[in-house]
């Protein structure tokens, strides 16, 4: 019932958006206020329908109605409330709905705030995008084709031919398959909404650009569009940051950035949005670059749709093993991107000749030229990344079955572009606030250049930088930080509200410094033996069994319990054991590693976690996932996870044994008691090995009266040293042997002593006076006994903190600019309404 309502309302919202689209078009052409009002109402109705159906979907999720495919696929009974809510957008359909919802809210803002000539055309474009997005989730089954995939479809509709559905069409699973464990993270709750807020806001500059082409008013549109673009960029940046931090802190992807297509999907629109901001600023200040600001505003949104197409249509899934459910939306997504291209780029080209162009060329040393260079470089970088991400399509020009490009491709191109950009920011900022010629510019740059040189030399010396290219990069990054900082200091004295741009550029410089330090100078933490081995591998001195040289280095080390190892000549690392607990995840182990810096410094602990993935583990196979521990510091982070452990291996072996369920297993194996008892006859001073253990009988020790039973005839202890040979760990035990009288009969008394960490009991069971030896009875002596061990992968990443710092500065700079431009836009509105 509720699902029916949800499904119907989604269709209603789709129909309402089509109606609104037509009416907005009429309102825009006829400049009719009444029709515009009606369309605004339709916009609202569409939004209400969408909200109700979203609530319906959340209701189905919260009440665990597993007959619905979406609910079954993404949730389960044991999911906590907050993750049940975020499971709403855990799937492709729900994430479309969230996107539409964000677009709806943005649209309300536009209806309220947009000025006269633009409102109807802007809303027309907004409605157009909403209509396409809604079409992805309506789930209409026309006879010849299917439009969209509704989140309200039942399992029976999803898999009509599944055997359990054929047997019982009303089949309702008792539990869902659950949200992917990796997504059960607080980041999951904020990361996607922030992305979609950014996507929705990035629609606004696109809509304004189209409206400006429509109304042929090419100057004014940037004033209302600029704060929206800045806000969209801030959202995307925040989303990128959250994603990177999430990947780094909890997903163990090894870093915060991997040039992954999905990451690129939010980076490229950000780059183009930033290019647009630069062009808009020139247009506002100097009435030029109209063409560029229109173009970038259009392209920023088109790239969002293009990347959505790449990541959701299954194009990437075939070729680069990126996995996204293919909902059969390929055609619709393709139509979406084609229409946006035609509406955007097509309209732009159609009007191109009419667009104002500057009367004269700008000089090289002008804010226009520098800012324009910045926006072109941002565009070029975006273009390079799009090219790389499009490899499954464009790569076919070169090879039949293309792979994604090497990571090196992205690095090779982004580094020089970043260097030029970095230097241009400083020139641009100096020229932005004051006219300069070469001479005067050189004059003001002397001090910043001096400081930059000192900082660069210090970085090179302290960081032991040997690569000339990196030196240039570091210089450019420091120059950006220091040059912009000096402009900022100047502005702070004049008008602190203007510092947005400089703060952003300082952030950019810091980001570059952080990126180069944390990626190029990451070093694995290893023990001396592994490090030596790796050095021999590098030198080509290691050969495998077949005589081929080994080329792969080992990037992990093993620790045995309570056996400290010297790591990187810097830390004494000791594995102290682990705890198993059921919270927050059942069966998770927290390992305890003690780090003692050898050069003095305070001891600290790292507690990486290993846990079984619930959604993907089954009765006969546990899948283990790791949760790294990142120790953040100002200078460097230590990133560490447990890649393997005795506990995990034993659990896997146990499971394998259970699966085989060998019926021929001897009975004794089951209770285990009888087989692992061993008697050891030993002389004083002698050492006897049993399995991996060595028993040494040191001497007899007299026993204290108190512990002996009454009427004891003999009471003696034996000092025994038990050593685990492979690990070298040893314990001294003093088991007791006594003979006492009771009711005229003699009894022996040998209480067992336990060595807890080995699960072993030692008893002094007999004395052989004739051979001058004693007998020990040892329980729990495992022939294959191994000390607890773990495998550790650890890296030291310098200055990740600076990456975050740079990101925060970028965010702060954007925020300051948003406030400034928003206020000015409001003031202009007030003035113009006061006039009329």
């Amino acid at each position: 019932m509720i699902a029916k309502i949800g499904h119907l309302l989604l269709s209603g919202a789709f129909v309402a958006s089509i109606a609104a689209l037509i009416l907005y078009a009429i309102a825009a052409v006829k400049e009719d206020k009444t029709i515009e009002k009606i369309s605004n109402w339709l916009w609202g109705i569409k939004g209400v329908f969408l909200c109700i159906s979203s609530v319906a979907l959340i209701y189905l999720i919260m009440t665990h109605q597993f007959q619905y495919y979406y609910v079954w696929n993404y949730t389960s009974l044991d999911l906590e409330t907050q993750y049940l809510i975020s499971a709403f957008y855990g799937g492709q359909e729900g994430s479309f709905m969230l996107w539409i919802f964000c677009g709806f809210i943005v649209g309300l803002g536009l209806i309220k705030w947009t000025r006269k000539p633009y409102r109807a055309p802007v809303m027309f474009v907004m409605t157009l995008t909403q209509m396409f997005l809604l079409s992805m989730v309506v789930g209409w089954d026309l006879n010849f084709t299917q439009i969209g995939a509704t989140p309200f479809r039942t399992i029976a509709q999803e898999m009509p031919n599944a055997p359990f559905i054929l047997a019982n069409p009303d089949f309702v699973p008792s539990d869902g398959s659950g949200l992917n464990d990796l997504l059960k993270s607080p980041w999951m709750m904020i990361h996607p909404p922030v992305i979609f807020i950014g996507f929705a806001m990035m629609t606004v500059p696109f809509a304004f650009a189209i409206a400006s082409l429509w109304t042929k008013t090419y100057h004014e549109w940037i004033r209302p569009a600029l704060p929206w673009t800045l806000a969209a960029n801030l959202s995307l940046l925040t989303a990128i940051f959250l994603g990177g931090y999430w990947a780094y802190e909890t997903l163990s992807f090894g870093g915060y950035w991997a040039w992954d297509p999905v990451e690129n999907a939010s980076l490229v629109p950000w780059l183009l949005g930033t290019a647009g901001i630069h062009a808009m600023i020139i247009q506002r200040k100097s009435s030029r670059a109209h063409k560029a600001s229109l173009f970038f505003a259009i392209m920023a949104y088109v790239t969002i749709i293009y990347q959505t197409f790449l990541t959701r249509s299954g194009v990437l899934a075939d070729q680069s093993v990126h996995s996204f459910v293919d909902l059969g939306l390929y055609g619709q997504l393709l139509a979406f991107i084609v229409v946006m291209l035609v509406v955007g780029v097509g309209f732009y080209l159609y009007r191109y000749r009419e667009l104002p162009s500057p009367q004269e060329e700008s000089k090289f040393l002008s804010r226009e030229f520098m800012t324009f260079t910045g926006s072109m470089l941002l565009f070029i970088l975006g273009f390079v990344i799009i090219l790389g991400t499009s490899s499954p399509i464009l790569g076919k020009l070169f090879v039949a079955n293309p792979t994604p490009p090497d990571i090196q491709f992205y690095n090779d191109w982004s580094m020089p572009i970043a260097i030029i950009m970095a230097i241009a920011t400083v020139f641009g900022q100096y020229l932005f606030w004051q006219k300069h010629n070469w001479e005067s510019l050189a004059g003001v740059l002397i001090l910043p250049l001096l400081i930059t040189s000192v900082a660069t030399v210090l970085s090179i010396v302290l960081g032991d930088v040997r690569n000339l290219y990196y030196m240039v990069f570091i210089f450019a990054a420091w120059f950006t930080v220091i040059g912009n900082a000096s402009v900022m200091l100047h502005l702070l004295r004049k008008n602190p509200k203007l510092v947005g741009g400089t703060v952003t550029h300082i952030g950019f410089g810091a980001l570059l410094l952080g990126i180069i330090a944390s990626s190029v100078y990451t070093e694995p933490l290893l023990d001396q033996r592994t490090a030596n081995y790796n050095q021999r591998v590098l030198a080509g001195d290691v050969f495998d069994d077949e005589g081929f040289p080994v080329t792969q280095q080992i990037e992990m080390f093993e620790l045995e319990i309570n056996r400290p190892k010297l790591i990187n000549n810097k830390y004494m690392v000791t594995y102290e054991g682990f705890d198993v607990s059921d919270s927050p995840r059942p069966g998770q182990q927290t390992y305890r590693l003690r780090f003692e810096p050898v050069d003095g410094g305070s001891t600290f602990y790292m507690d990486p976690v290993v846990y079984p993935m619930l959604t993907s583990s089954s009765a006969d196979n546990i899948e283990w996932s790791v949760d790294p521990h990142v120790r953040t510091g100002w200078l460097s982070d230590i990133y560490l996870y447990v890649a393997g452990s005795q506990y995990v291996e034993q659990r896997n072996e146990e499971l394998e044994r259970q699966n085989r369920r060998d019926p021929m297993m001897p009975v004794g194996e089951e209770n285990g008691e009888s087989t692992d008892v061993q008697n050891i006859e030993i002389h004083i001073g002698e050492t006897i090995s049993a399995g991996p253990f060595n028993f040494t009988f040191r001497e007899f020790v007299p026993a204290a009266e108190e512990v002996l039973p009454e009427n004891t005839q003999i009471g003696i202890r034996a000092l025994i040293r038990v050593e685990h040979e492979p690990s070298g760990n040893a314990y001294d035990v003093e088991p007791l042997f006594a003979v006492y009288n009771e009711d005229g009969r003699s009894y022996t008394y040998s209480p067992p002593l336990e060595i807890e960490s080995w699960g072993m009991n030692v008893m002094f069971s007999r004395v052989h006076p004739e051979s001058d030896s004693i007998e020990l009875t040892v329980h729990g002596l495992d022939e294959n006994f191994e000390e607890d061990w773990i495998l550790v992968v650890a890296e030291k990443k310098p200055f990740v903190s600076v990456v975050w710092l740079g990101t925060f500065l970028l965010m702060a700079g954007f925020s300051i600019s948003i406030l400034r431009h928003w206020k000015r836009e409001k003031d202009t509105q007030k003035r113009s309404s006061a006039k009329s």
Partner: protein
Amino acid sequence: MKPKLIIGVLAIVGFTSLLMYNFGNSISTYVNFEEAENRSTSHVIGNWDNSQEYGFSRDTMQFSFHMKDEDGNVRRVVYPRPKPNNFEQATQLVVIGEMRNNIFHADEMLMKCPSKYNENPEFELATGGES
């Protein structure tokens, strides 16, 4: 105007061709194990052959398993890191590395996981390759 335009066009053509040349060099094509014999680095797509022994050896510090490529060739693959998360769950594997003496030495492994869309990369790059 004219010379500037020519310089501009030349710059764009030069840049684009350099970019495309470099792009073309940085991608390669997926091959099967047999083709991989004669190449230095290859990308091979396939599935885990779970009928044979697999696992991480603490002696060699390598994870080894058998993989069946798309043309049905089965080869042993060794990977100098622990077993990646999601290994058993993966519906498809991509190994990147070098074939030597009928053993594939993977430097990198990508796992494609069963259909679940989410906002973050669904498969994991098993080696940390950040910029």
